[in-house]
């Protein structure tokens, strides 16, 4: 056991305060999602006297959450698919090839991780507008693929680096072509990495704001986040209903987080922790 009694007590007090402050806004949101606007106005910190579940049904109806949640799911799954298909082979090559050219490619992908959206957003938008790709869900998924694949490539590359080269050599001796080696030998061993990538990319695509709000402008294709943002900008008086919509949008993410915490935390902190 690390630490004496005093520093343990001190630590527990700190931890308590911290956990409380992290949870407070979330608890307030959930609690007030079940109250009427009048009740919220009279005391936002009071527990609901009566559970107003109708906030959820009216949010669902008025905000048309159903279709927009479906769009979010479409964007997220399309992005996951495209990232996995393009990043996995790329990660494998970057893990195996040596030399100046490949070092430069690795360097390029690293650099694009830190490039601000603002540096390519404007020409991209007007380019897409000319090509008729604004208001297209697949087009948004394509942009997300470019944005999120460098992260996926570097995460998957560490998995590829851990695979012994002898395995591939054995496959080659048996006459396997490069794509066969990749498909039958490498891919199965990268599966845990792919799960982490899918989770993080899915989360990012579900939550993304700048691209979504710029490229999706019709009610017939907005994601849940954009729908929520547009709606609350206009009528931010009915807080009960608004918070019910917020809880509905966040809930799927929180459920997956609770089930797959390790993948979430490992994936999102990967690359940050240096030994």
């Amino acid at each position: 056991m690390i630490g004496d009694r005093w520093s343990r007590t001190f630590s527990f007090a700190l931890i308590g305060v911290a956990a409380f402050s992290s949870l407070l806004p979330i608890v307030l949101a959930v609690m007030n999602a079940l109250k009427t606007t009048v009740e919220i106005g009279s005391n936002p910190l009071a527990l609901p006297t009566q559970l107003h579940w109708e906030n959820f049904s009216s949010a669902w109806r008025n905000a048309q959450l159903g279709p927009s949640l479906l769009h979010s799911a479409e964007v997220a799954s399309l992005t996951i698919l495209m990232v996995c298909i393009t990043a996995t082979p790329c990660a494998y090559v970057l893990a195996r090839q040596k030399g100046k050219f490949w070092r430069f490619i690795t360097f390029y992908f690293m650099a694009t991780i830190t490039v601000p959206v603002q540096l390519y957003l404007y020409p991209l938008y007007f380019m897409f507008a000319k090509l008729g790709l604004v208001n297209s869900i697949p087009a948004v998924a394509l942009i997300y693929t470019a944005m999120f694949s460098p992260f996926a490539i570097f995460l998957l590359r560490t998995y590829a680096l851990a695979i012994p080269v002898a395995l591939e050599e054995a496959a080659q001796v048996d006459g396997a072509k490069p794509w066969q080696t990749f498909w039958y030998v490498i891919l199965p061993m990268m599966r845990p990495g792919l799960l982490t990538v899918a989770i993080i990319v899915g989360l990012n695509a579900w939550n993304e704001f700048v691209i979504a709000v710029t490229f999706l402008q019709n009610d017939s294709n907005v994601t849940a986040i954009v729908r929520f943002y547009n709606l609350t900008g206009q009528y931010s008086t009915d807080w009960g209903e608004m918070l019910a919509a917020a809880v509905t949008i966040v809930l799927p993410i929180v459920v997956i987080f609770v089930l797959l915490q390790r993948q979430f935390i490992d994936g999102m902190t990967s690359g940050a922790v240096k030994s």
Partner: protein
Amino acid sequence: MWLFALPALLINICIILVPAVLTFTAAFFMWDGVGKPAWAGLANFQNMAADPVFWSALTNNFIWTAIFLTVPVCIALVMAAALLMAPNARIVVQSIIFLPRIIAVAVTGRIFQGMIFSPATGIVAWLNERGFSISDPLADPDRSLYAVAAVDIWHWWGFLAVVFLSAMRQISVDQIEAARLDGAGFLALFRYVLIPGIRPTLILMLILTVIWSFQVFEFIFIVTRGGPAYGSEVLATFAYRHAFFEGDVGQAAAAACVMSLFGLCATAVYLWLQITDDAQST
């Protein structure tokens, strides 16, 4: 073999590299995004330099950087150390403090607007009724930037603490025990064992903080849109406003270039660290 890298590379070049080069070019043109661009030389940069909003936006980026290099980092370091001392609470608390990071920024922004800062329905209202006279910080040009920063800190520090905690857990227990036996208290342990032990991680996070602070957009755009009276305007909201609300893409591109320039210095350090690190691990 190189065909394996082609799809990812091609998508990246079309979506990021080509438009980025176009942004750099557009900074030297008058362009509304639709019509024919007209050569403008340095006019976009000169207009920007003459615009007081640009300078206050740039200042706000520096303030933002200073806040995020200190406040969340200090909270996260202390919390990571505290969690290291309390192994029983670690798993549950780690998930709780990580939670804000996975909630969409648009949702977090609205929750803070309505439940914390609102003078009608938030904690501010609750405090007002109990005799503390606090006005809505989001409606005050002098305080709005700090109010938005508070929201981002809430969203960010827990993630940072989890990163620091996983780094601290790589420090050998023997080293910590040895310091203890030498009579080191919490502060000495923190200062002489834990901080030096996670130095590479700490430096990386500080560099990334500088990079991200010059890109900050979402929280500010969602909560205040850079207002009121441009009080919380940063370069990214400045650029977005010019491109999409004022039809001046040239000006937006110029602002984006300035923004990237500041990030670039930090990015150079980041890349250098990553490359040397990479060379060691492969």
